[in-house]
């Protein structure tokens, strides 16, 4: 996943703001990168652009070698379902579906509807330690368990990149660390990178790379404590 010279204007006319001012970043397989910065620094906007949900005003984004330039919303959705998994701050699970069906949904939108899809969903929930909660509805799960279901949903389609937006913000310390541990395990394989947007200092020990963003610019980058899986850091402001 690679961003080159990404600029993003938000709003129109007099109220228009330049949320990103030329951001470069690459996320490589096998690393867990943290994108940190204060509120309004452009973290979420950048995550949306990397996740092909927003299009950059200028610059290029490449996902697994595919440029997003000129793609329509349907083509961007196709890139997302093939290559990207998302973990959201407030989980965004489907409240009327069980944990298993929530995870299956990620396969359903990819067109996988066979019994194999059910097996994959069960396996994904097993990886996050929720084999015993397959038929539980989100309302019957704790915050930490809901976030685990969301992680299972993100990884079940075997995407190249996981983008996580403040995944620990709604959790207590113990659950937050547990979730980061799961994400770190996911990033252990060389074929998958994880980018976590956060301003939670508790999770710094899990990072292989820490990228700092302010006012729409990447202002610093450092290797994390947990850099044994780190590939070469490429991004710079």
């Amino acid at each position: 996943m690679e961003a080159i010279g990404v600029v993003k204007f938000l709003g129109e006319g007099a109220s228009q703001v330049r949320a990103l001012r030329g951001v470069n970043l690459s996320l490589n397989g096998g690393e867990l990168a943290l994108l940190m910065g204060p509120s309004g620094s452009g973290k979420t906007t950048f995550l949306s652009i990397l996740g092909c949900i927003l299009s950059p005003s200028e610059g290029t984004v490449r996902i697994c070698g595919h440029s997003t330039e000129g793609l329509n919303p349907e083509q961007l959705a196709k890139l997302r379902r093939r290559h990207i998994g998302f973990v959201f701050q407030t989980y965004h699970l489907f409240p009327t579906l069980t944990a298993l069906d929530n995870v299956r949904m990620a396969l359903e939108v990819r067109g996988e509807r066979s019994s194999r899809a059910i097996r994959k969903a069960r396996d994904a929930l097993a990886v996050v330690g929720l084999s015993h909660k397959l038929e539980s509805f989100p309302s019957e799960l704790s915050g930490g368990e809901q976030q685990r279901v969301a992680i299972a949903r993100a990884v079940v389609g075997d995407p190249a990149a996981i983008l996580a937006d403040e995944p620990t913000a709604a959790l207590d310390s113990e659950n937050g660390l547990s979730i980061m541990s799961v994400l770190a395990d996911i990033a252990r394989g060389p074929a998958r990178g994880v980018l976590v947007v956060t301003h939670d200092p508790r999770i710094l020990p899990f990072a292989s790379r820490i990228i700092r963003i302010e006012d729409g610019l990447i202002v610093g980058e450092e290797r994390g404590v947990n850099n044994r899986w780190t590939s070469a850091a490429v991004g710079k402001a």
Partner: protein
Amino acid sequence: MPLILKLAGRNLFHDRLRFIATIIGIVFSIVLVTVQLGLFVSFERTVSTMIDHAPADLWIMRFGTKCFEDPSLLDEGERFRALSIKGVADAVPVVIGFAAWRMKDGGTTPVFVIGSDLKAVGLLPWNLVAGSIDALSIPDAVAVDQSYFGRLGSTGLGDTAEIRDQRVQVRAVTKGIRSFTTTPFVFTAIERARSYIGIARNKATYLLVHVAPGADVGSVRKRLQETLTKAEVLTPAEFSARSRSFWLFGTGAGAALFAGALLGMIVGTVIVAQTLYSSTKDHLNEFATLRAIGSSGLYIHTVIIIQALLSAVIGFCIAAVIGMIIVVATATSALPVYMTPTLTTIIFLLTVAMCVISAISAIVQVMRMDPAMVFTR
């Protein structure tokens, strides 16, 4: 169960109160449409019931006759001219007209008298449940339908009344011969009918033509039309269609029934649209999540359409039961609501169309949705 069906169903049933309100709205709408269209079919059938039951190959009538109930008269001479045409086996005169039926208690009610030659194959009562056609040969004899006993102050065979100060006696009773005007039909012999209506002995309203065996109806019709300068010749289908067209569209009665049905459709569409819109609004976050995790627009639209179809099927099933109760309850009334398999299919398709059209507002809402909202909520 397919996941898409599960998601759509649970989205729909999640808020039970709203779901029940939606179904009630759909049911009322469909029942209204059913009654209106059922009455339309009933009206359509009843309008042409005499023409459809008359054993004629061709109808001869005065030029400009708009419908069966139009009392324009032909001269006897037209009958003889018709009989002189090659291929015409018989031309049976029929007279019709309104008259006042005076009951024994002195009250009166309008009736529609139909007189035909009892010895010929004319327009005679059918569906007899009491008495006989032969009994109509008895002086003063008439046949009436049992559904109008109340209107006629009659209880059955043997009851007497007066038409134009002349005694009449019920000698035959029919079942299910109803008039769309709700004016009771009174069948009798042609001579007495002329007397009851007050028309000359040499006049007739229609001539029912029987074509000779082997003769071509089209050719006979052409020859008749060339010969009869003051009359026109129609096939039963043409006359039936003309009558229906006059009463259903010429008078605005059909338009009123259609307007009622249309109103029902509009009310139903608005109710379902409002429900789907608010349901979609409530679940917008989930649709945004679906979009964010890579769902196609088509998949999301399908979820909404399935919600609409589920509403349609459930609403239709309940409405169909109520509709059947109405059909049964009105079956013996003066104005029955008819239901046919074709009409049932049409109403089901209308229900589906109504619900799918209703989904448009919800789909537009989803199309305008920004999937980036998943990061901000």
